[in-house]
């Protein structure tokens, strides 16, 4: 993003956010691009790093361990109940940062815009993104914009990168799950995945379900304060809790045993999954976390999570066990037992 400040504008007419569309010129480095950056991005993300108008943001480095994470966001539709690609792109990266126990400090944002995208949509997305960032607060201190020809993108793709700092004494990492540890989830599963599915026009389902997209920085801060020795944190986004737990099981070289009746889920999510033959364990979440901690910390941690607005439906859903195969197993509500495997390809609806 080229930075602009209190200089004389190089353009005379204002951007038409009501009827205008993204054009190739908005990415070509000329006046049109400067105008878009000025009138949209800097106006929305306004902070002193951006106002310095450099090609990079310069900030002081504190002591301790820093974490950095990057996340690309592509979603159809761009706007969905409970959020949009803008808020999602802030929450996604912030959540990746805070899953280390870190406090998020700065974000960068890269936009790939498709020629023809209504400027009104872009404005709505950028403003939603700025609001999400300010709510945390974490400033977007540098960025970039490119425009691709119509047909080469899906409206807008957003890549955000974040930097954070880990408090002393906190060591959260996915190879730390130990047999005997408890597995917690911070709320109902599958809300985002199903909300997106319902928002797509090709499904003749309608519902009131909203995406759970949310930044988990505050919840994690409270959790780390309560139990600094949390072993593992993971936000179960794509692939749902099944993918997250399988990854942790492999990284830690352990097995897991879940109890289906303990896993919180909204009835609508269960119903849609039932209808389409999907498994909610594989549906994406954007405002939930999975935590693994020592058994003596579990109840205290659960109580604390439940007092937080983003953790009211939290539950202990299982425990870590010894298993050379690193299988994630589940005791079904029905009384049997099965493997909760990695997802193979996309989830496909059953035929009959």
């Amino acid at each position, binding site marked *: 993003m080229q930075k602009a400040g209190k200089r004389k504008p190089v353009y005379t007419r204002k951007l038409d956010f009501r009827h205008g569309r993204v054009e190739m010129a908005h990415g070509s480095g000329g006046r049109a691009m400067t105008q878009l950056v000025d009138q949209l991005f800097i106006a929305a993300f306004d902070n002193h790093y951006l106002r310095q108008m450099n090609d990079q943001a310069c900030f002081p480095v504190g002591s301790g361990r820093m974490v950095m994470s990057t996340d690309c966001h592509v979603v159809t539709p761009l706007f969905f109940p409970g959020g949009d690609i803008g808020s999602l792109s802030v929450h996604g990266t912030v959540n990746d940062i805070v899953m280390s126990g870190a406090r998020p400090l700065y974000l960068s944002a890269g936009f790939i815009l498709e020629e023809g995208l209504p400027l009104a949509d872009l404005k709505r997305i950028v403003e939603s993104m700025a609001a999400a960032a300010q709510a945390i607060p974490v400033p977007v201190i540098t960025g970039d914009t490119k425009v691709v020809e119509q047909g080469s993108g899906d409206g807008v793709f957003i890549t955000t990168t974040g930097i954070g700092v880990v408090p002393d004494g906190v060591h959260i990492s996915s190879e730390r799950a130990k047999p005997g540890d408890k597995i917690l989830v911070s709320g109902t599963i599958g809300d985002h995945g199903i909300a997106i599915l319902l928002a797509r026009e090709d499904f003749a389902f309608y519902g009131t379900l909203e995406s759970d997209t949310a930044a988990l920085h505050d919840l994690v801060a409270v959790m780390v304060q309560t139990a600094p020795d949390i072993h593992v944190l993971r936000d179960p986004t794509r692939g749902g809790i099944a993918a997250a737990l399988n990854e942790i099981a492999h990284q830690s070289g352990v097995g897991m045993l879940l109890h289906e009746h303990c896993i919180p889920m909204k009835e609508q999510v269960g119903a849609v999954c039932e209808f389409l033959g999907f498994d909610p364990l594989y549906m994406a979440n954007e405002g939930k976390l999975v935590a693994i901690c020592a058994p003596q910390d579990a109840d205290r941690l659960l109580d604390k999570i439940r007092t937080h607005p983003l953790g009211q439906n939290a539950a202990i859903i299982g425990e870590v066990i010894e298993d050379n*195969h690193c299988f994630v*197993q589940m005791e*079904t509500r029905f009384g049997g037992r099965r493997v909760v495997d990695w997802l*193979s390809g996309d989830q496909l609806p059953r035929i009959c």
Partner: protein
Amino acid sequence: MKYIEPFRNGAIARKIARKITAETDPHRDYYLMEFCGGHTHAISRYGIPGLLPGNIHMIHGPGCPVCVLPMGRLENMIQLAQTPGCIVCSYGDMLRVPTAQGDNLLKQKARGADVRMIYSAADALQIAQQNPQQQVVFLAIGFETTTPPTAVVIRQAQMLGLTNFTVFCNHVLTPSAISHILQSPEIRELGLVRLDGFIGPAHVSTIIGSNPYAYFAEEFQKPVVIAGFEPLDVMQAILMLIRQLNTGRAEVENEFTRAVLPDGNIKAQRLVAEVFELRRSFEWRGLGAVPYSALRIKSRFAEFDAERRFALPVLSVPDHKACECGAILRGVKHPRDCSIFGTVCTPDNPLGSCMVSSEGACAAYYRYGRFREDDNDDVARTH
């Protein structure tokens, strides 16, 4: 969920499990085949084997629509996908079934073919209406359950006068497949495979009713219990089969009375009869050529028949040499018996069709049941 949850009640499941254990004869084994992939899926997903005594053996049958589709028909589908100006539509699982060369419809899509995943036959018709300049082919697969919707769209296409919509018909029939299995030398003459009774299809039976199974019970002296796809349905059906076997009965019983009538859905049957006719023979993967086991589009709807419009050749392509899908579909082998199960052939990289669909025996076993390998069944059962 209100009407589903009661059929997944763990307390009732344990009650039925106790009855099954109490009533099974510990001195004999029971070999029961669930014909349908839907049952295979339910058995694996809910961990039903863990609730059954060790002398009840569930054999997975061939009732998985994509599993039984022969390679030659799959090659035809790939050809259609490669035809310029052609949009091919099918149900999700179909898109991942690999050809002998490891190709599939999703890979064709990645290479530029227009392949659409649809949720109902009506979606395919809609795509045809929205794309009048292109030929839209619906790759129709499935048993009697999915056949009536295909009949509906063919009739609608005729009424709408569509000239860019065809159906590649691969609809197959359940009773002929069951007969074929029971008549196979492995079961009838050689006695290599023991098969004591069947759990009859759920959704298929809502269409064809319970009457068509009377022949198996009578001719082959095998009890059939039609059951719903919920886990309690399956448990109850197993109990009913055990009771029949213990008392030497071989009858058709209907556990799924909430949806299946003796005569089935007459309206759907009429629709199917209006649009389709029997094929003299059709190749099934694993079973080979099975007489009168599939449907084709009647000549009065010929203009909607992709086989005629695109003059698709009849191809016979052998399965991969190491793949045991055939034997697994006939109940002769267990997925575990296949040398490439879980090594070369996995859900991420399936070689055989049984590894593709979640209803396929191999995929269901891989996905849900693998922990039993080392554990052996008895350990799993203590939970």
